[in-house]
């Protein structure tokens, strides 16, 4: 447990001191959100209607963009090998890495989401719902992305391959994430419950796949 917390602390500290990864993801998110009105036209009513969908899609793309470096740097400088012979089982390494990804990428993205929503003329009373749906769903996103990053670790064109592998798996998250904004009574609670279930399931299942892939890539 101590080694597990130490690993998370190390990753958080690295992310904060380097800062470039967080900055890139945030920048990509804002750019993605702001070029969409350029393509659709400045119709505020339309933008406010489709804002939750755009925010969720841009969020997913930003999270995928930044996940490719999750294990890569540690592999390049050899610390992943050191971790693998350490006391921590590969499953827990995968859990800690996915958790760090959520803390260092998804949480800043969630924090900046109200601002991105303003660009799209989102209704103000929809913002808390949107934030709740992102908070419930994106944990699962990070765990699936962690497994994908472990699978494509060290591959040629791995960064290009990764979105092809994991974006299809994000379909349920996107559906329930945007579903939480629906007008229907009870839709919000139902969607949040589904999103939490998806996240919990990913937390339970994905580290095993990620650990298998990690062991494979370290052979």
């Amino acid at each position, binding site marked *: 447990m101590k080694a597990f917390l130490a690993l998370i602390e190390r990753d958080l500290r690295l992310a904060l001191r380097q800062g470039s990864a967080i900055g890139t993801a945030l920048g990509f998110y804002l750019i993605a959100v702001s070029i969409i009105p350029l393509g659709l036209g400045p119709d505020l009513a339309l933008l406010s209607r489709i804002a939750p969908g755009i925010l969720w899609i841009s969020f997913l793309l930003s999270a995928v963009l930044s996940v490719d470096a999750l294990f890569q740097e540690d592999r390049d400088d050899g610390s992943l090998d050191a971790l693998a012979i350490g006391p921590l089982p590969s499953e827990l390494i995968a859990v800690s890495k996915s958790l760090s990804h959520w803390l260092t990428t998804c949480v800043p993205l969630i924090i900046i989401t109200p601002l991105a929503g303003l660009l799209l003329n989102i209704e103000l009373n929809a913002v808390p719902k949107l934030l709740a749906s992102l908070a419930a769903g994106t944990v699962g996103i990070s765990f699936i992305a962690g497994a994908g990053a472990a*699978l494509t670790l060290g591959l040629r064109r791995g960064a290009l*391959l990764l979105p*092809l592998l994991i974006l299809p*798996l994000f*379909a*349920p998250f996107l559906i*329930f994430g945007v579903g939480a904004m629906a007008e229907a009574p009870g839709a919000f609670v139902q969607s949040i419950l589904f999103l939490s279930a998806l996240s919990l399931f990913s937390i339970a*299942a994905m580290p095993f796949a990620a650990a298998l892939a990690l062991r494979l890539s370290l*052979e």
Partner: protein
Amino acid sequence: MAELSEPQTMRSWRVSTLANPTAFMRLSGKLLPWLIALTLILFAVGLTMAFLAPPDYQQGETVKIMYVHVPAAWLSMACYSVIALSSAGYLIWRHPLADVSAKAAAPIGAVFTLLALVTGSLWGKPMWGAYWVWDARLTSVLILFFLYLGLIALRQAIDEPGRAGRAAAILALIGAVNIPIIKYSVNWWNTLHQPASVIRADGPTIAPSLLWPLLIMALAFTILFVVLHLKAMRAEVLRRRCDAMIAVHVRGDAAQDRAGGEAVSHV
């Protein structure tokens, strides 16, 4: 692995006997001509029956697309099940033939899925007025197609066959776990497609004159899949043997060159 190390004289038949590549090649070689003949007969009968089947009272002649579309859609799922089972077999027992099976099934499954999508959209144009509608089943089949593409792409991105096989197997199992979730979430999202009408608790809701050709076509497609899968597996086994022989050959040549070089330097 235990069954490989057994002496060849023990001939008690078990399923694991099939896992021996040599036994597999022998048996599949014997079976294939019969299966190919069976496929041809079933397609001849099925296509004739489909052609002669009465047009549907609502859909007219376009209902005949169903005889290709429905079997292809069934197989797109069945093929992923074959891949998932083979992948589990490969990850658990590390048996090369399970990997051969998973590798051979992926492109076939992708083609059946594409066939289901294309025939579906051809049918959708006169029925729904658009080639593509974002209905639940179309969407989940499209996502299935992307999963197939991901499997094939991941395997191609890794040069070493053993690693490629295991990485693809892990991805296949991740996909297998997620497919039901994707399917139900997409259902929740939007449902426009026909509800299931052949397999349901209160019996089929499809007229017998349309049902029989459909069942025969489904059988024909299934045997076709078995034929293609066995063929592709045989090709893959042969390809791996060729690679092994080339590797031995190259090593031999290199050893000879070294010996020759040393001889020259001694002179």
